[in-house]
């Protein structure tokens, strides 16, 4: 059915759409996550569903602009609902999110079911808005997405420092005259835009993942807002394009889940291997610190034993050292790493002695040794050297 040319063209449209939605969601998602509003996106996207259905019912057509407008208005109403409930009532923020999300989504499902029963409803295929269908993206959809996306990015760029301050310290911002209330509404509006851009391809159910995941990954690799936003946009685009292409290549595979799976992989890799904040880096740091401390403690034990000898470089069997520590099982291993540093020497049989250098290092580290402070190194060149 698909001619090669058509297929290529469709694929390019899908990839372009996914890239745009990834960039915009990654960018706006960063602000949502940093402001502790990760789940606001979830409420907004679910709230958009009845808007889409109503827009279709009112106009009877599936024009992208109309549906986007309906989605945006309903999403916005949902966001305002969350804010109003939190401000006016004693319902806490997370409960307000849950309420709005489920009530709007429920309304959306009712309307959707009703539409499915209409003669025109079957072919409207609004149910693809649940889990997304990137393959259904048309050039006119892309046009709407690009215009909205570029507008959102321009606003972010122009108000860069204001939005940074709003996200980091809104009270201080208010004290210097930043209109925090209005900026808050603006940023929420941009979030709504990012969400409606992505709805058709990703779907209302999983939209929040494409807001949160790229940021979570980007934050692992960067300590600055600019780089975090850039990387989140990049990861968002990569996950969007990869996921959309995977789903487009299989029959009737919803796009949302594939995009989210790809984004999830990016997050998993980032959590694991990112330098500094990654789990691996953390584990290595932890392991090194423990090893260094064990070496230091053993060096001190050797020093204590050596000081009681006329010849400080006299060798001792490890059993002596084992009695001095709570972790005797580590002594043999640690002795070998001290040997690699050139601080201890192995004599004939299994006896060990400080080298000249080891003695000097130990004296520098534990030089003011007295019976009272013998466990308190004043500083540790032994550690600094590692």
């Amino acid at each position, binding site marked *: 059915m698909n001619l090669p040319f058509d297929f290529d063209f469709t694929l390019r449209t899908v990839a372009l759409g996914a890239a745009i939605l990834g960039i915009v969601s990654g960018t706006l998602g960063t602000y949502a996550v940093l402001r502790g509003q990760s789940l606001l996106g979830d409420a907004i996207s679910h709230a958009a569903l009845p808007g889409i259905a109503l827009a279709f019912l009112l106009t009877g057509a599936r024009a992208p602009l109309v549906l986007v407008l309906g989605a945006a208005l309903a999403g916005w109403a949902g966001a305002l609902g969350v804010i109003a409930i939190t401000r006016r009532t004693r319902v806490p923020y997370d409960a307000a999110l849950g309420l709005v999300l489920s009530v709007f989504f429920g309304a959306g499902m009712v309307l959707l079911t009703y539409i499915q029963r209409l003669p025109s409803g079957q072919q409207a295929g609004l149910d693809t808005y649940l889990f997304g269908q990137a393959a259904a993206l048309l050039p006119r959809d892309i046009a709407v997405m690009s215009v909205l996306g570029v507008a959102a990015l321009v606003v972010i760029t122009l108000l860069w420092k204001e939005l940074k301050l709003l996200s980091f310290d809104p009270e201080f911002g*208010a004290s210097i005259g930043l209109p925090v209330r209005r900026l808050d509404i603006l940023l929420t509006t941009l979030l709504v835009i990012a969400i409606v851009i992505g709805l058709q391809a990703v779907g209302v159910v999983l939209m929040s993942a494409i807001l949160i995941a790229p940021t979570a990954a980007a934050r692992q690799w960067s300590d*600055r807002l600019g780089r975090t936003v850039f990387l989140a946009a990049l990861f968002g685009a990569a996950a969007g394009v990869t996921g959309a292409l995977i789903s487009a290549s299989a029959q009737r595979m919803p796009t949302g889940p594939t995009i989210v799976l790809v984004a999830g992989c990016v997050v998993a890799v980032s959590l694991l291997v990112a330098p500094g904040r990654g789990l691996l880096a953390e584990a290595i740091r932890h392991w090194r610190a423990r090893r260094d401390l064990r070496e230091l403690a053993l060096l001190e034990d050797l020093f204590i034993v050596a000081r009681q000898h006329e010849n400080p470089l006299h060798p001792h069997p490890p059993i002596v050292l084992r009695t001095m520590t709570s972790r005797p099982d580590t002594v043999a291993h640690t002795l070998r790493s001290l040997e690699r540093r050139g601080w201890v020497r192995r004599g004939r049989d299994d006896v060990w002695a400080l080298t000249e250098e080891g003695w000097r290092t130990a004296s520098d580290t534990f030089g003011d040794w007295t019976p009272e402070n013998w466990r308190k190194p004043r500083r540790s060149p032994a550690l600094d050297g590692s």
Partner: protein
Amino acid sequence: MSAAAGRQVHVGDGRVGGADVAAIEVRDLTVAYRDRPVLWDVDVTVPKGVLMAIVGPNGAGKTTLIKAILGLVRPAAGQVLINGAPFDARRREVAYVPQRGSVDWDFPTSVLDVVMMGLYGRLGWLRRPGAAERTAALAALEKVGIGALADRQISQLSGGQQQRVFLARALVQDAPIYLMDEPFQGVDATTERAIVALLQELRALGRTVVVVHHDLQTVPEYFDWVLLLNVRRIAAGPVGEVFTDENLRATYGGRVPYLRQAHVEPPAPAPAAPFRLGRAGGE
């Protein structure tokens, strides 16, 4: 002079120099969260050039007073004047140091960046901070003794260093009035001394500094002016006149154990600050 003048009959009310306008004038201020009043009919006058502590028990409304002065909470009644005009007209004349715990220190930004935020108000919309702002921010960081940390990610700072960053951000605002919410909270002795020296330097420059403070013992040593607050204003004025046993008991409801000790056993070679002796009984 003011509508509230008739009410201001408290001892040691902070008016100096007759014609001189007060740095901060709070009149009949009432703030309520829902149905609970946090501040009730508070009148305070902070003269120019004083270093004032706001003390009072938890929930006394100290932070709320600061926020009300800054227009961050809307009062149910009352008025605040900064150098004789409403806050909106005097925004540039007030620098603010919020509580350290009020922000997420894992936010992806650098120390220098945070300090430069103090200049955003002056920069105005759309303009990005440039070389001049960097220089000013670096100078402020040097001033608080952490110039070397300018490029650090803020999550790598200790509590004392975080506090210094906030102080530096207020310093670049270069304002005649400073409002600080618990700048000594959770900092070590070294940082506390450094901050006190800075505050006293600001006062020496003629700035007005208002500090929410928790450690009663150090009030006479650090400050020359004090406001005792417990929802209502108990007393305000020079420390020597107002920081009395009686006022403190009125503020804390008679639960100031270390002060009692200090008075039962007067200090032998009495320095100016008798309360410091009671340290052993402190919390």
